[in-house]
């Protein structure tokens, strides 16, 4: 597993499609290259959509985790 430190956390829990991607884009825009963003979401669509979003925008997907309370954690590195 890649080692990384989280620079910022975006709490997108409760938001529905397409807002998690929109908020992720707006948050990453304010961050520096190479920084890591943690996105918290409980939208099952985002589990599939955010990795696609990362691939499409050229940002690096580090990890996708799911908690017992169904919170999905997605880690992205700005590229």
């Amino acid at each position, binding site marked *: 597993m890649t080692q990384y430190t989280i620079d910022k956390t975006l709490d997108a829990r*409760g938001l529905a499609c397409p*807002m998690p*991607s929109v908020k992720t*884009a*707006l948050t990453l*825009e304010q961050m520096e290259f190479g920084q890591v963003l943690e996105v918290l979401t409980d939208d099952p669509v985002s589990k599939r959509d955010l990795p696609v*979003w990362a691939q*499409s*925008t*050229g940002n690096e997907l580090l990890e996708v985790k799911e908690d017992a309370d169904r919170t999905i954690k997605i880690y992205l590195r700005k590229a």
Partner: protein
Amino acid sequence: MAEQTKNKGSVTIVLFSGDLDKATAAFVISTAAASMGMPVNIFFTFWGLNVIKKKGGLIKGQNWMQKMLNIMNYGHAKKLALSKMNMLGMGPAMLKVMMSQKRVPSLHEFIQTAHQMGVKFYPCEMSMTVMGLKKEDFIDECEDVIGAVSYLSIAKESNINLFI
């Protein structure tokens, strides 16, 4: 989002419909595409102009037919009907509650977000002339008023073209 140059495909949408459901679909696609770094243009024509109208001003137009049409076609982003199950406004009211319960933004919020993300709104010149509408009748987020040729010059450079 200029730094996200990997995906250059742009999206151009003709929003012909002034229905709440169809306009919402157009804005879901627009904001998602903008989040992916894609340039997005929306060309509002005919009934779709209602989506970007400012609130207020019931009587618009130069002659009685235009005035009558604008009174009967009164609408703005917060006052649009559904394409199905409108039920004299009950449908949109219930849908708005259901959407906010699931934390889906309202159409008004979608318009703000889209504008913030660089989505460009173009009102159609010909529809405006027919209906007797002026640039001032539309929200300030709108770009220039353009015609069919300008729309096509944008559309032919776009990878995704939708007519809603």
